[in-house]
């Protein structure tokens, strides 16, 4: 009779132990969002990750938060996390100074598929801090700019002061042939740009829909409308990807918190091809 499955021989990695790393730089992107640059030289060969993956970021004695990686995968010696100050852990992180230590474990989760975009146009649609997990993909695309067609970045923030990575957005537009379209919910006296939700930017671009790959990240409501808009314009669902967020404690599929219907966002996500989750997005309080 069979007993004690082969699973008993499963690998014994310990993904639950945090690794102390030093904060090398802190940049305040706006009033409540900041980017921590971490020194990863303690990791042999640096910290390897794929665009779209996330880490569990630990503050000594306080707790952990799941934060997407926002730096360039080709520069594994440092690691950027762009963090919105909102809860206990992120507020503690906001009080950290250069030279302080925090803990990191990861990287976890799935990544944006860049290979599928080779030879195609790319439409990146993001809202708020949703641009952070997409920045590594932009870095990766720009490394091999000639491999891709048009690169369109649609980005929406609450107000002009809330916009992330403003200098870089301008640089991508001027130096790298990236079509950057930015909108805000509310303008101010200095704002000469567009006002409205992210989907309102679609009126300014003409997509070669069947030859376009879309990467979407932002608040869930923004993603839902964006997906509808992409769908309406004929971008195949199989070429549309999005990144989901849920509460996470373990990041390895043990704690149960991040379940989104049949899927664990920490294991199968956070980045999903749209057909995998399309039907789930309409289910309120899933």
């Amino acid at each position, binding site marked *: *009779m*069979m*007993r*004690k*499955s082969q*699973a*008993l021989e*499963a*690998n*014994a*990695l*310990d*993904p*639950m*132990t*945090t*690794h*102390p790393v*030093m904060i090398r730089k802190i940049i305040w992107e706006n009033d409540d969002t900041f980017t921590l640059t971490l020194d990863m030289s303690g990791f042999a060969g640096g910290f390897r990750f794929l665009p779209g993956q996330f880490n569990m970021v*630990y503050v*000594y*004695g*306080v*707790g*952990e938060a799941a934060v997407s990686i926002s730096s360039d995968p080709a520069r594994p010696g440092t690691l950027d996390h762009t963090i*919105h100050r*909102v*809860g206990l852990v*992120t507020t503690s992180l906001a009080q950290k100074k250069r*030279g*302080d*230590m925090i*803990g990191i474990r990861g990287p976890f989760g799935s990544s944006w598929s860049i290979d599928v975009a080779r030879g195609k146009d790319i439409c990146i649609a993001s809202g708020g801090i949703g641009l952070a997990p997409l920045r590594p993909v932009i870095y990766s695309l720009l490394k091999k700019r000639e491999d891709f067609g048009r690169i369109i970045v649609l980005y929406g923030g609450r107000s002009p002061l809330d916009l992330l990575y403003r200098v870089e957005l301008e640089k991508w537009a001027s130096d790298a042939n990236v079509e950057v379209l930015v909108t805000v919910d509310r303008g101010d006296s200095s704002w000469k740009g567009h006002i409205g939700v992210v989907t309102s930017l679609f009126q300014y671009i003409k997509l070669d829909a069947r030859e376009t790959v879309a990467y979407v990240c932002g*608040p*869930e409501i923004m993603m839902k409308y964006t997906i509808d808009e992409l769908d309406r314009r004929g971008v195949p669902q199989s070429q549309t990807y999005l990144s989901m*967020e*849920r*509460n996470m*404690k*373990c990041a*390895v*599929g*043990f*704690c*149960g*918190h991040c*379940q989104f*219907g*049949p*899927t*664990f966002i920490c*294991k199968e996500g956070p980045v999903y091809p749209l057909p995998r989750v399309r039907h789930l997005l309409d*289910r*309120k*309080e*899933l």
Partner: protein
Amino acid sequence: MFIVELNDLQGLLTALQAGGFTVIGPTVKDGAITFDTLSSIEELPRGWSDVQEAGSYGIRHSEDDTLFSYNVGPHSWKKFLFPARLRLFSARKAGKAFEVDPVSPSAPPKYAFLGVRSCELAAIAIQDKIFMSGPYADKHYTALRKSACIIAVNCVHVGGTCFCASMGTGPRAKDGYDLVLTEIRTDDRHYFVAQMGSPLGKGLLQQVTHREADQKEREQVEKALKAAHDRMGRSLDTHNLPRLLEDNFESPRWEDVAKRCLSCANCTMVCPTCFCSTVEDVTDLSGEHAERWRRWDSCFTTDFTKVAGGNIRMSTRTRYRQWLTHKLCNWVEQFGTYGCVGCGRCITWCPVGIDITAEAAAIRETSMTTTNG
């Protein structure tokens, strides 16, 4: 099959103890049959049985002197393999920096579980999948599980809230044990029929006085198990069940059950497959020493799905729906089995007597879709 007389059963415990096992088994404590360390067969609930119904549990003296004439109580084996509280690491301050000491399960207790029922074998197999079969393995669970010895006991008595026959998990222990016993009490005899499930079980049996079972004794086991199968207190129709629940995501029944459900999380605490956990980070007063603890959590707690932008599941309606659809629908896609083994604990220990089998049946009854066929 082999026969072990009642008087020789202590030999099994002695063999386990000699093998370095800490023997855990059922015993009467606080008015319930709970799991605790056993040093002798005398500590088993001899002559006790239990009465279970939706929202009610009681033990009483049985009509005979049997050792296993009751069903599962409030404890399950997950309390040993997946402890309710576990330190994941400790850390200490070193100037601006800190150092982390992972807790290594270097010398975990070597457990022998005595009296594991077939539904519980199924539950352990399910938790094996969760904690040991993915890209990551939980090292604490793995260490405890690898060294555990399982002595199962077939259920020849079934309880009022049992429905293992519906879930295909009992009452006969099919696999996942080292040794399985069936207790037989007739007017003049009291013995156990033993079957081996592993070399460890074989080795244990060799240390206990036993003999080959005869034809009549074999038939006795089949008869007893058949009778148990036919006397299940509850049943759950699993025909097309995942699809039925998929199609009834907005069933009015969720609102109905939410009016009764207290969101107390009892069902998830007693469930032998529920695996959700959270973590707590603490420091001592000086801040020089920090620890991270894992503890059981429940999808019924208010901040379970809290994210920066708000809370995903805001009502009891959606929390109960998450729990039931996880057990009977999403689990199948996640792990290839139902997350329910039909043990009935959630029904018995629900303070208001909510019955998962009744809720599933009500959804089936009110379903407007063709999956109800």
